[in-house]
């Protein structure tokens, strides 16, 4: 009777903004470093913690390195890290979720039990250990992150597909002789896609903040590599002296998360 809560399909203004922001970020990450052509590792110990100037548009960090250059090259790693960890979490998570709801019975019980066990495993443990197994290499970080993130996709996919697969439309498709691929393509994905995207948007943010958290407990990426999360931790000691510095990577992340939310819609599936 009443209009239901707005579902986010169709191209709204918000989405346009979101997409353009994302495109912008991607562009910065890919082309940015070459465009400004400053070496993000170049130091000048006599000009540290400087405010914005003609020479350094966003100022310099605690080793006199150009902030803009570092943010841009950081964008590459951070965005790649976020995208990869989300992707590697989403694929198995979704597939297993579908698998569980498809076969039900023991398959479902075992998978669910497994997922619960993983959830109960402190994700931090996995990430820290993987990071410790190959110190300073960032693939370990993202592998660890995906390992802890996939469960969310699994749970969501399983719960939703359970309902969808029991609908008459699926029964009809089966009677018509369609196989699994068709049912996944036409029935499941269109329904659960938006929800998954929203989780992904949250996951991306989690990935970057997690890197920051790890950097905070001094696990993570080797110097002089620039990464937003690592920059946050490295600039924290100077937060009173030069607050504008730590603010920059945080703002970058805010923009990224905002862009993701605008472009996938903000409804969080529970």
């Amino acid at each position, binding site marked *: 009777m009443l209009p239901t809560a707005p579902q986010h399909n169709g191209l709204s203004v918000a989405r346009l903004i979101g997409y353009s922001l994302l495109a912008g970020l991607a562009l910065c990450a890919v082309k940015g470093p070459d465009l400004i052509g400053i070496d993000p590792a170049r130091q000048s*110990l006599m000009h540290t913690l400087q405010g914005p100037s003609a020479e350094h548009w966003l100022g310099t960090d605690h*080793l006199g390195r150009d902030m803009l250059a570092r943010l841009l090259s950081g964008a590459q790693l951070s965005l790649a890290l976020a995208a990869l960890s989300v992707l590697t979490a989403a694929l198995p998570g979704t597939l297993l979720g579908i698998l569980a709801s498809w076969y039900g019975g023991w398959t479902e019980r075992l998978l669910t039990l497994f997922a619960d066990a993983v959830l109960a495993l402190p994700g931090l443990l996995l990430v820290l250990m993987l990071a410790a197994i190959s110190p300073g290499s960032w693939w370990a970080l993202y592998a660890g992150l995906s390992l802890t993130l996939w469960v969310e996709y699994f749970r969501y996919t399983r719960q939703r597909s359970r309902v969808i697969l029991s609908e008459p439309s699926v029964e009809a498709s089966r009677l018509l002789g369609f196989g699994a691929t068709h049912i996944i393509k036409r029935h499941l994905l269109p329904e659960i896609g938006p929800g998954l995207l929203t989780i992904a948007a949250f996951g991306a943010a989690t990935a970057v903040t997690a890197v920051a958290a790890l950097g905070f407990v*001094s696990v993570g990426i080797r110097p002089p590599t620039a990464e937003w999360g690592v920059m946050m931790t490295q600039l924290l000691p100077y937060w009173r002296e030069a607050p504008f510095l730590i603010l920059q990577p945080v703002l970058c992340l805010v923009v990224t998360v905002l862009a993701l939310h605008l472009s996938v819609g903000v409804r969080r599936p529970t």
Partner: protein
Amino acid sequence: MLKALALTMVATGMLTSQISIAADKTQLNISSPWEIASYEPSVSGFAFYRLGVMETLVDATVEGVLEPGLATAWEMSDDGLSWRFSLRNGVSFHDGSPLTAQIAAAALQRAFANPGMLKKAPISAIEADQDDVVISLDRPFAALPALLTHNTTVIAAPAAINEDGAHIAAIGTGPFAVDTFTPPQSLDVKRFEDYWGDKAQLEKVSYLAAGRAETRALLAESGDADLVFSLDPSGYARLTGIDSVETRAVPIPRVVALKLNAGHSFLEDPRARNALSLAIDRIGIATAITRFPEATASQLFPPALDQWHSKELQPLKQDIEAAKALLAELGWVAGDDGILSRNDERFSLLLRTFPDRPELPLIAAALQAQWREIGVELNISVSSYSEIPAGHKDGSLHVALYARNYGLTPDPIGTVLQDFGPGGGDWGAMNWENTEVAQALQAIAATDDQAKRDADIATVVKTLQAELPLIPIVWYQHTVSVAKGLQGYVVDPLERKYRLNNISWSAE
């Protein structure tokens, strides 16, 4: 979160410059980065010693002059192979039990069995003889009393040790007794009324281990902590501008240095080591990172160790061109990416350091950039500091960056001997031996007569400066913030103890 924001508004709005006045004038709050893991003296002795819970046989003044502790006097046998420490009478532990020579000897035996300072001395036996503790040596070691000032040699009551030899409590003889202990974060102590020496004015002291420098700075600023140790440069700079606290920085015998594997084909030649040293912008590092330009290390031993610090030495300095020249002499040629190479070997090294002292990774990053200038590629691995001794042992280490404390005891000879003696040391020279230095060190160890020592010390420091088995970078400043109104606190350059029984609040 709106509420919180609102609060913040209010907060910044009613920002009044009120100085916090400690409610209870006999209470002192201390904060430092060092966590207290357990009751085991070899692990946590430093804390129990600094807070005046436990004491050692020998004590030392702030200037590093030895003075009686639990032992009133000590003497070396003529052959120098045996030391006799006569114990103070009428000393009782916090549980009321009396201190005896047996107890002291047992404690020292335990200390010797565990890793710790005593390991640096050639000890053959530790026994009790009536009211004395007798320590026998394999060869003369003049600095033994100095070693006995170290916090790993504290004397704990037998009641603190369970049947299988583990410490289950901290019962000492000091002016303060343990009140509550929550490892690893905090330790509260209260005044011990039956202390043998002059009693403390403070009734209660609580110690909070706050790992983050940002937190400690805020603790000092807010007045939650009255004594805050080892502030980060940025925090220190800020606190100096705040009138509720007074900041102090004293040079201490701790030096940030690079350990080089002199056995490595790139580094075996002293010229290579000198080249690397010449490439380092020490002033830049001391200005931008540690922020005490005066603490730029011109040589290994800082002025704080006046007997080892030499005025004559030619100070280490930066000279890129000279560095390049030296490397050229050694047959290194710059490749097209600017990195030197010699018969198809890139001049690429792996530096190991650790995050426990936050400035180290920063200095490492600085070195990375500075050595790039002379065509040396430096990869950095920030990991556990145990990787350094491990790398020393299995020979895989290239370069290590760490802070070495030559002030563990008033007389650094123990440490120096370990670092530069035969075979080098985990935290000293690696695959570097120099018979001259070795002999000199033995001679120094054998006597405590400064006049006899000077010549040998001169040889040692000269050789170290020339050969650079360790490349010094900056010296340390021990930074402390002290709340206004706190009287009698003296910064101990050896970071040995807080001397709490001399501290009191000025009545106002």
